């Protein structure tokens, strides 16, 4: 290589670097500007009447409106769910609440992303820390607020490991004390004991102080299981059920169903515990969320929305009997919890 050729090539490389770095910086600045515009032009009204909202039936959710309160837990009254929201001091990736208590899962992003879980009191200030081992996925609190459940994704590495994901589902007291690692429970499917280590359990929904429903998976199959903390046992109820959610009256379970859809797609369905009847809901888009019941007739779930290069999400509602059509309940929101 001659010296002039080398110099030419170095100059060409310098040009590529300048274009690549300059282009990236310009793009980032552009997005920054857009986000600033979106922030100033935001139509999301806020309210300062948090105490007033909390006194009446209300919705607790993660605020995904771009702006100051992004990622913070917000509250709106059920009577005006998409109206002005009161933003709380808590920042969570996943939130769930019952009256007077909330559970908050969040990732601290940095050189190394770490994950934390906290119990929040009535004022949305932390009251206890929870053990959390991976990417927050699901969170629930029992109706009386004494038990909590978290599901996180724990990763294997990317080197030739088949089925490298794993979930971890912990049930804890509201003090943070761990009661159970659901994957250590005995798993009975149609009376047969499953011992494979690829067992995963996720998406707990509480019935009472002892019983709960959840998803169990092994060998590529999923089941709705009914669990008992006292018996340390999970018993299968039916197949192809993920992320169950028990209706307020305790008669129905809403869940996501994979069926014969392509990988990573689910339809929402409702299972009637008494009759065993399954009803597929009118939402035709794929939903990957543990749904929440607005009342005994309507379910809520989050769906992402991509606008101007920034992803946000909305909380949708659809009738639980398969009729009607989905509609947005709250814009720029995620991870709903209904408190009546």
């Amino acid at each position, binding site marked *: 290589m001659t010296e002039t050729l080398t110099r030419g090539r170095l100059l060409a490389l310098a040009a590529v670097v300048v274009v690549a770095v300059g282009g990236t910086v310009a793009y980032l600045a552009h997005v920054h500007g857009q986000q600033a515009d979106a922030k100033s032009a935001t139509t999301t009204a806020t309210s300062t009447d948090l105490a007033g909202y909390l006194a009446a039936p209300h919705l607790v959710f993660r605020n995904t409106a771009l702006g100051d309160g992004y990622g913070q837990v917000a509250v709106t009254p059920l009577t005006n769910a998409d109206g002005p929201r009161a933003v709380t001091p808590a920042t969570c990736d996943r939130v769930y609440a019952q009256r007077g208590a909330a559970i908050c899962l969040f990732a601290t992003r940095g050189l190394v992303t770490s994950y934390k879980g906290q119990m929040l009191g009535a004022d949305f200030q932390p009251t206890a820390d929870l053990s959390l081992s991976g990417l927050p996925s699901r969170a629930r609190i029992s109706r009386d607020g004494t038990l909590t459940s978290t599901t996180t994704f724990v990763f294997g*590495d990317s080197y030739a490991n*088949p089925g490298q994901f794993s979930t971890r589902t912990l049930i804890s007291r509201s003090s943070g004390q761990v009661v159970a690692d659901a994957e250590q429970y005995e798993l009975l499917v149609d009376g047969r004991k499953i011992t494979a280590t690829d067992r995963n359990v996720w998406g707990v929904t509480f019935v009472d102080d002892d019983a709960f429903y959840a998803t169990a998976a092994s060998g590529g199959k999923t089941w709705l299981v009914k669990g008992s903390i006292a018996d340390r046992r999970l018993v299968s109820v039916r197949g192809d059920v993920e992320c169950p959610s028990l209706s307020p009256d305790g008669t129905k379970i809403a869940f996501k169903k994979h069926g014969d859809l392509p990988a990573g797609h689910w339809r929402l369905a409702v299972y009637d515990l008494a009759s065993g009847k399954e009803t597929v809901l009118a939402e035709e888009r794929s939903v990957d969320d543990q749904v929440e019941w607005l009342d005994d007739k309507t379910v809520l779930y989050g769906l992402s929305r991509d606008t101007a290069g920034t*992803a946000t999400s909305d909380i949708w509602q659809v009738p639980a009997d398969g009729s009607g059509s989905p509609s947005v309940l709250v814009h720029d929101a995620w991870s709903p919890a209904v408190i009546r």
Partner: protein
Amino acid sequence: MYVSVRDRPGQTESGAAPAARRVATTVVVLGLVSLFTDISSEMVNAVLPVYLTAEVGLSLVAYGLVDGVYQGVSGLVRLVGGFAGDRGEQPKLVAVIGYGVSALSRLAMFPAHGLTAILGVISADRLGKGLRTAPRDALIAANSDPANLGRSFGVHRALDTVGAAVGPIVAFGILALLPGSYRSVWVASFAAALIGVAVLVLLVPNRRTASGAKKPGIGALLKIATGRAMRKPVLAAALLGLFTVGDGFLYLSLQHRDDFAAQWFPLLYVGTNIAYLALAIPLGRLADRIGKPAVLIGGHVVLVAVYITAAVPVTGLAWTIVTLALLGTFYAATDGVLSALISRLIPEQGRGTGLAAAQTVQVFARFASSVAFGSLSVALGPARALTLVSVLLAIVIPVAAWLLATRTPVEAV
């Protein structure tokens, strides 16, 4: 770093004191190519789980299940890459295509929605990686002094690891600055990959590997890849690979044992990488001095220690750190060293094919091992399964050592 520039790497002379030698410019440049490319791919890998679950609304379940399949495809493409580089006598061209495919896959992240599209994009990246690895290692070998091969591969792998560490920092920095703007991450990732490709295209000499008038035929290349010189080391690599448990299982075992490890799961990678980064060059130099087989075997002895430290029912941070440091040492003693060892055994015109064959055999052996270990830990539990594997590995190591010791050096220079 004690890497200095040396224009014309010695190709023939050997026997001079290794300490006096320096790593060739081209090897450092190839290391920089890998550094930028790794920044690019690790940026995406770091944010992908969050992106898929929180923003696209997909489940990681499907992602994890399908990912294993692409590893197999990547192994086959690796063979194609090594072979094409040798056959066309232009490993650089094949490497450029491999790096280019990965770079272009970043742009495809923009329109990609839904699991299938995103998996397609990720697999394109993996295919690019499979394609480029063997011809790139052949280029490293071709541009290195044979007496210096271990150090050359050490320098390359160290730079590669730096990129892997920087990528996630950049990605999370961008997301901290611009919440939710994954597109900004894709843009920056593409820019880093573009710089990597530009460095490769512009600064790596387009060195034709063979001086002969005749292109090596398929038969001749196959003969080299399966030839006498290759058989024993590849068999040794396969044997050792069969008892190499994937990191994921190891990390999960640590995590099941030790709740502290569970909480800081992501740190496990960092711990391993720090040890790898710190030791890649020293162990490469050691391999040049005392012989590659010795370091390769030593690395697997360390791996036995990794399994034992992971299996013993002792919890605590210090113990976990020891395990990770040992795991990083294992990688530093084996990853680049195997390539260096294979490179010395094969004549230059068939090097890409030979390297690809050895690496593919190793990938498949480890893949088989992961599947087998999965069932083993079902039957015995993780700790006992690890103990059993450590015993088996300890039995196999002397056999591998014998296979490596009785090699016939072909590179008569």
